[in-house]
């Protein structure tokens, strides 16, 4: 199917790229359907609303820059999106790129959790104070590299 995107204009996507957030993202409760689209630059992914062309997020796999990232979410909460096993789960962190261009940050406190099997998704809240809404991706990746040397 063809969809209108904020970043890439009209593009063609497969059904498998569509996820449904019954409750939407926090602050955006009215938008439920989004498509996951590879950005021009890996490993970024666009999360494009199918209901509003101008609503689009950028996301990243949080484990790519924080190997130590951990999510402890109650099974009862994950069952809202039908998750039965950890293997069903795909996690993304929403990315903020300020108008000045840097620092590029990722939100590890409110990750997007996707059930790969049924493509139902939710934005979770992580209570561990270690994980915040702004993690400087480049800085924390460098820290990791320094400590691993």
């Amino acid at each position: 199917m063809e969809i209108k995107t904020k970043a890439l204009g009209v593009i063609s996507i497969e059904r498998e790229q569509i996820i449904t957030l019954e409750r939407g993202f926090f602050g955006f409760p009215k938008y439920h359907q989004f498509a996951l689209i590879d950005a021009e630059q890996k490993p970024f992914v666009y999360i494009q609303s199918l209901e509003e062309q101008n609503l689009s997020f950028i996301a990243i796999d949080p484990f790519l820059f924080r190997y130590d990232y951990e999510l402890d979410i109650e099974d009862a909460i994950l069952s809202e999106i039908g998750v039965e096993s950890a293997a069903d789960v795909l996690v993304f962190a929403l990315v903020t790129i300020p108008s000045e261009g840097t620092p590029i940050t990722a939100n590890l406190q409110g990750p997007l959790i996707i059930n790969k099997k049924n493509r139902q998704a939710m934005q979770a809240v992580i209570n561990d104070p270690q994980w915040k809404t702004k993690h400087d991706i480049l800085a924390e990746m460098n820290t990791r590299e320094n400590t691993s040397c």
Partner: protein
Amino acid sequence: MLILSRKTNQKIRINDDIEITIIDVRGDQVKIGITAPRSVKVFREEVYIGIQRENEAASKSTVPKSLPALPFR
């Protein structure tokens, strides 16, 4: 909105399975204990508002002509 007063160690019950206890009051700080089923989401309001604000900022992200290349191995 229901507004009520409680003293230290007094409780509030919500449905059959949520219990809120006023543990301690000191000046303008109140320590609260919450017992709820695991499926109930409990978090400080600032956390919720923080994520909401960050989503707002994320949705307004200025996408550069090309996204920056990250040095992933």
